[in-house]
């Protein structure tokens, strides 16, 4: 950030030059202050695995991790997360292509139909398990409620999260 201020108030220029750390890689970009993390990922960095559904924080399709916690990229300004660690669906599998346990469980349990909500579901599920909120089907449903699936694959999504939770937190 060029205009970090301390006790003085400084108005930033119209275009901000920022660095984002995404999946362990540093990206430099010039953006307008209003650009969301979601638009920066999709339109500027070609990381289109993160989906734009409602763009108003109501569907969960744009779920990513910031400093290890799941958040919505559509309501996050890119400038706000300049010095945070951002993880998207592209950064989940190992370098050699080995899928994350949650990705594998979604395949095994057939936990999607059209697939549009799936990256958000998976990013949300990884965090849900890590938070310790996947202890029962009821708890999984409550803590995955922020991810809508218009195909209605919910029973299989719950099964996938349950399976992955068993593997990751036995």
């Amino acid at each position, binding site marked *: 950030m060029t205009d970090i201020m301390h006790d003085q*108030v400084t108005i930033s220029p119209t275009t901000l030059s920022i660095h984002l750390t995404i999946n362990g890689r540093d990206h430099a970009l010039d953006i307008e*202050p209003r650009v969301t993390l979601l638009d920066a990922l999709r339109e500027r960095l070609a990381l289109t695995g993160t989906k734009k559904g409602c763009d108003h924080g109501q569907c969960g399709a744009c779920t990513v991790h910031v400093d290890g916690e799941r958040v919505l990229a559509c*309501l996050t300004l890119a400038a706000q997360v300049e*010095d945070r660690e951002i993880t998207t669906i592209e950064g989940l599998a190992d370098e050699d292509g080995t899928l994350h346990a949650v990705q594998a469980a979604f395949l095994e349990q057939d936990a999607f139909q059209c697939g549009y909500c799936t990256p958000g579901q998976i990013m949300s599920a990884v965090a849900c398990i890590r938070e310790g909120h996947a202890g029962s089907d009821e708890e999984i449903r409550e803590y995955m409620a922020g991810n809508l699936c218009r195909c209605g694959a919910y029973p299989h999504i719950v099964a996938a999260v349950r399976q992955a939770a068993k593997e990751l937190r036995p």
Partner: protein
Amino acid sequence: MRDFSYLRADTIEAARNASALPGAMLLAGGTTLVDLAKCGVAEPSTVIDISHIDGLNTIDITPERAVIGALAKMSHVADNVEVKSRFPAVSEALWQAASAQLRNMATIGGNLMQRTRCPYFRDPQNFPACNKRAPGSGCSAIGGVTRGHAVLGVSEACIATYPGDLAIALVAFDAEVHLGERKLKVEDFFLAPGATAEREHDIRPGEVITAIEIPGSAAARRSTYIKVRDRQSYEFAAASAAVGLELEADGRTIRDIRVALGGVATRPWRARAVEDTLRGKALDEHIVREACELAMQGAVDHGANHYKIALAPRVAARAILKLGETA
């Protein structure tokens, strides 16, 4: 979304100075501001990012009180072990609000500044008339679809429902909001619309919320938050109740009771008539149900929201009776 200048405040002092700039708005979690900017409702000329200020996200709990920093995340407060044991209604109100992702973003201070979900307020293109957005322009909700609108604290200028959950628990337990030097009851922080629907909070230019403080009490320890809604999760309240209960040594006479309602009023609504009636009475289902009806004194419906007048007292009674069952 109209573009704006972005600046980052690294200290509370800098945030205070910057927030006094014309057209400036504070950005913490962004879940309200970024959303409303996309709707064309919020049009800041400058966005002041306060989310990087150090030391404002602490959760400090003693038997006497909880002091929660303005930048503490909703999810962290909800999962805090001490909050769960000493202020269960606060934890329950938080985890039943929004979604896990939004709770990881949204802060406690920002939560108090959350705006109404009135669909007319949120849609300036189709509904130019809104006294909250444009004072004196009228109210599109009155005469419109009102299923989600308030029945308590309404005026001819505005019937928009206060949408939050946390503040319902806060007003029940006499919490205060810290605005730097100035401290005031959360209950007084929220303003009913009256003839000035655009003024929702008692906050002045240059003031920044730094913390909330909740006094500890027996009623806060034995408390709960019940939220009834159209979906089981991830939905705003049709009616909700934050309730706290303290019984005498006989185990059935009510010594202290707190009742506050959400989803039915234009601001977080403390139901003092219910509390005053029940204090000193036996915890009896019939007495509780009858007393809870008093919460709806002065209620005004606009057709489709009539059901709230029947629903809210039942939610409050259910919460009280649930607490009675837990010894």
